């Protein structure tokens, strides 16, 4: 990996302390009280944004009677877990969880790779008409989902993919990779050409350049894509609702929808169910956000 680049790890959480940071001498003087004010403001904003989640937590462990009598904003007097347990068993939560993970994970990985290939051709290869091609791919994002649903239903029926997870995976790979292609191609357009030329001069083929040079350098952006795609697909409701008929293939959002009937809804269980469906996505985000903070490039020019 001769062209592997290592740099200043700007925000590596594994290495706090001055060793990982570049400090100009006069900067240390600026570590004044101002930073606490800014921190307080940022934390306050975060707390304000978390209010709805706090409400969700309050209601996730509340019994239906308490919810109806004291309202959604009250503190539960006892921790009520029956709703959660019922929901878990009734919708076969572990099964749905697995379905969601399989679908979201597959889409995240596949769409990232498709985006990488597309963006490599468009951003770095700079093939002719690349702007129009990016636009064309973006069309996948521009079409409202309602417009796609009937055609996709018919196509899925024709190809025998109706009621399979593969149909959902394929559809979302295309939709998400449109965004990925656009983002990566935009970033790749500003890719330092000297690195590519250096690699080419070293005798590397296009394929090798992709994996040895471009891939490692674009890691943070690729991580962003994986995270976004996973989370966006995780919460997708409409297309799985239409494509996945058997309960065994369904994802979590569709399962949660069963808590809302025609006229009645089960609010505490809905909150409990949402909480446990949120958790995997949050965990995923927390794990992968560490990859967002890996240091990158530019020092490579040297």
């Amino acid at each position: 990996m001769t062209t592997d680049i290592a740099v200043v790890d700007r925000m590596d959480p594994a290495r706090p302390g001055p060793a990982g940071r570049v400090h100009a001498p006069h900067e240390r003087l600026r570590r004044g009280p101002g930073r606490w004010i800014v921190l307080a403001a940022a934390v306050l904003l975060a707390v304000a944004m978390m209010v709805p989640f706090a409400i969700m937590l309050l209601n996730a462990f509340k019994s239906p009677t308490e919810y109806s009598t004291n309202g959604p904003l009250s503190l539960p007097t006892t921790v009520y877990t029956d709703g959660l347990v019922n929901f878990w068993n009734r919708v076969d939560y572990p099964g749905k969880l697995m379905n969601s993970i399989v679908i979201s994970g597959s889409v995240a990985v596949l769409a990232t790779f498709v985006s990488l290939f597309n963006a490599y051709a468009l951003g770095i290869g700079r093939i002719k008409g690349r702007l129009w091609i990016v636009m064309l791919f973006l069309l996948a994002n521009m079409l409202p989902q309602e417009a796609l649903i009937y055609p996709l239903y018919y196509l899925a029926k024709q190809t025998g993919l109706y009621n399979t997870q593969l149909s959902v995976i394929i559809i979302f790979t295309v939709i998400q990779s449109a965004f990925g292609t656009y983002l990566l191609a935009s970033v790749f357009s500003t890719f330092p050409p000297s690195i590519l030329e250096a690699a080419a001069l070293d005798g590397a083929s296009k394929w090798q350049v992709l994996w040895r040079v471009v891939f490692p350098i674009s890691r943070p952006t690729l991580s962003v894509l994986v995270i976004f795609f996973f989370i966006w697909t995780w919460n997708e409701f409409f297309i799985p609702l239409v494509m996945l008929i058997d309960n065994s293939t369904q994802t979590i959002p569709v399962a949660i929808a069963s808590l809302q009937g025609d006229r009645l809804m089960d609010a505490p269980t809905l909150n409990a169910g949402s909480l446990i469906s949120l958790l995997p996505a949050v965990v995923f985000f927390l794990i992968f956000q560490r990859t967002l903070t890996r240091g990158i490039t530019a020092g490579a020019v040297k």
Partner: protein
Amino acid sequence: MGTRKHGRLVAGLLVVPLVLAACSGGTDKGATDGGATAGATQGGTLKLWHYEGADSAMGIAWAEAIKVFEEETGATVEFEQKAFEQIQQTAGMVLSSDEGPDIMEYNKGNATAGLLSSQGLLTDLTDVAQERGWTDMLPESIQTTARYENGVMGSGPWYGVPNYGEFVTVYYNKDMFAEYGIEVPTTLAEMEAAMDTFVAAGIVPLGMAGAEYPAGQLFYELALSKADRDFVSAYQTYTDTVDFQADPLKYGAETFDAWVKAGYVAQDSASIKAEDMGVAFINGTTPMIVSGSWWYGRFVSEISGFDWGIFNFPGNTLNAGSSGNIWVVPENSANKELAYEFIDITMRPEIQALLGNNGGLPLAANPADVTDPKSQELITAFNEVLDNDGLAFYPDWPVPGYYDVLVAAFQSLINQSKTPQEVLTEIGTAYDDGVANMG
């Protein structure tokens, strides 16, 4: 470095299940083809879908029915509880494919069962209904929603079988009534007087949810106080033109408007959802709500702080209400005989009594079997409406998408941003356009 490997490992792990899932994601059609259509009642499988909660009256009764069915026929039931939203949005698509069930619960009305029947997606049950005596078990007014001719209910072949009923009534907080010395009203004027008492005491008398169905249903109840059966037929089954600028609809809108002005209905309830309205009743904030029997079971289990009851909308013979959701047998069903057997079982007195004793409204139960006092209260009220041939269905049924029109229109009245005439014109135009489009 660790994260890089970690990322690759996770990615790799995720791709493997992908392949597996893709291969096995489809339905196993073998199971449903097992029960041959040649009237086999020994063994086989029945793919059954419904979307009633497991704790609801229907859920409990039907679970029992499944047990009885499996014992008696030896067949197994592949039951899947669906989300209402999925059925509502995708029923047409599902039933046009091979992935549908053998029998399922479906919504009654022109826009739902009517539409599917007109497309040939539902089995004609007329003969079976005759054979098995369902035509005799169900009251005439209930049968309206079981039969559809060219997608319009009321006549024609049987496409669905109702199992239970539902109607709109007035729930009231007995303790609050006692506190303010109010008697149960028997006329609309008495009800208005009762509401005046509450308003004077600073309490909003009638709970309302402008963002969902309750507003439209209140309007309908008011209109029905001046309507007759012919009007209902005209409005719901297009037997005649409907004049939106004349009574009874005019009366309904103007009275609704008057009630808002009098403070009977909260002026900031345009964005309130039905759930919040119900919760307000349960926690004793609201003295009365005009809503449906579907709340009954929940009120029974969750209201503890006060005494409550129901009374039918004072002075009305006609009330909003209909049969409950119906059992339909998709045309593509592979086990129709089994499906008919199951429907039959749900109509049996024991199952119907189970439904009745758990807060539901049975249609074919022996009155003696329903022992729970609270349930008896509900069933007596319902039977009163039935005996008067008083079921008038729901205001949003006539035209597809009318629900949204009504919600928007009555939000205008709650917000006092339009006059009743303007609202009537708005909903009238939408009605006429919708009916014209259906041809």
